[in-house]
């Protein structure tokens, strides 16, 4: 297994647009640290391409961006790219899935294969400003949700264990809840509530001491 990153970057709706834009921070860090990286972008995020890349490259860290369910992770236009059927391709890897619910059943299943899976047992929620859809990175409300989630792969790329990385991410969610409550705006409670929902949903399945 080599120190490397495979990341999926579908971009066909607002959610995947935001996930892909915010992933630039993860990609930039990997490049700065000269960690080999394979980006699967837009309509290339298909089951066939994902399987090809996972078979060809021995990179240890896999980041999935997209939609999901309790048993599946999707790619371009919601094509299912990972399910129980091909989860053996993720053997001995560290997986972070920024997709709804995948940690619930799929994550538990995958973690049995000597893997470590970080994801969400319930929905991943975020607020976004429609006026910022054209430039997600300029959306401060979305940043409250996506920056803590970025911290998971970022912390792993920096050499921390999976357990430490998830903990750092969760601490950042709590800091953001504090920040938004201190703003004391009408909308603060609702945003804090959505952040707290992500805090509760984020889960690690497998060996917490695994590192890149």
């Amino acid at each position: 297994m080599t120190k490397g990153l495979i990341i999926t970057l579908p971009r066909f709706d607002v959610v995947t647009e935001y996930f892909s834009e915010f992933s630039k921070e993860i990609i930039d860090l990997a490049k700065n640290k000269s960690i080999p990286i394979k980006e699967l972008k837009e309509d290339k995020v298909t089951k066939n391409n994902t399987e090809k890349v996972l078979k060809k490259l021995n990179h240890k860290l896999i980041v999935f961006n997209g939609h999901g369910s309790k048993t599946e992770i999707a790619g371009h236009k919601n094509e299912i790219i990972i399910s129980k059927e091909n989860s053996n391709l993720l053997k001995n890897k560290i997986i972070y899935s920024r997709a709804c619910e995948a940690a619930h059943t799929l994550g538990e299943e995958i973690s049995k294969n000597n893997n470590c899976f970080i994801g969400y047992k319930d929905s991943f929620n975020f607020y976004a400003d429609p006026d910022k859809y054209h430039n997600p990175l300029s959306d401060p409300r979305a940043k409250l949700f996506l920056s803590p989630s970025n911290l998971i792969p970022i912390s792993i790329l920096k050499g921390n264990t999976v357990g430490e990385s998830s903990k750092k991410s969760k601490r950042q969610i709590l800091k953001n809840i504090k920040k938004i409550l201190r703003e004391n705006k009408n909308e603060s409670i609702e945003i804090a509530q959505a952040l707290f929902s992500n805090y509760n949903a984020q889960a690690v399945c497998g060996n917490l001491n695994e590192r890149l």
Partner: protein
Amino acid sequence: MKQENNENMRDLIIARIESTGPSNLKLFVGGGEGMSREDMIFHVQKGDSIGKKIVNNQINFLKAVSSGKLVELLNTV
């Protein structure tokens, strides 16, 4: 009695969304389009899967606030 409690809870959640739901933002819960405050209220009233998620998230948050769990967590950072 249980149905009455559920209806009261639903009305409470709707009142909360009406008063504190961000008017200029969209909420993304899983896939699909972002929801405005009005969309959220529609789903809660309809009682569909999205509406149930919204209600559960609100109840979990209220429980964490009332039990002191949220304050306890926020004091750790």
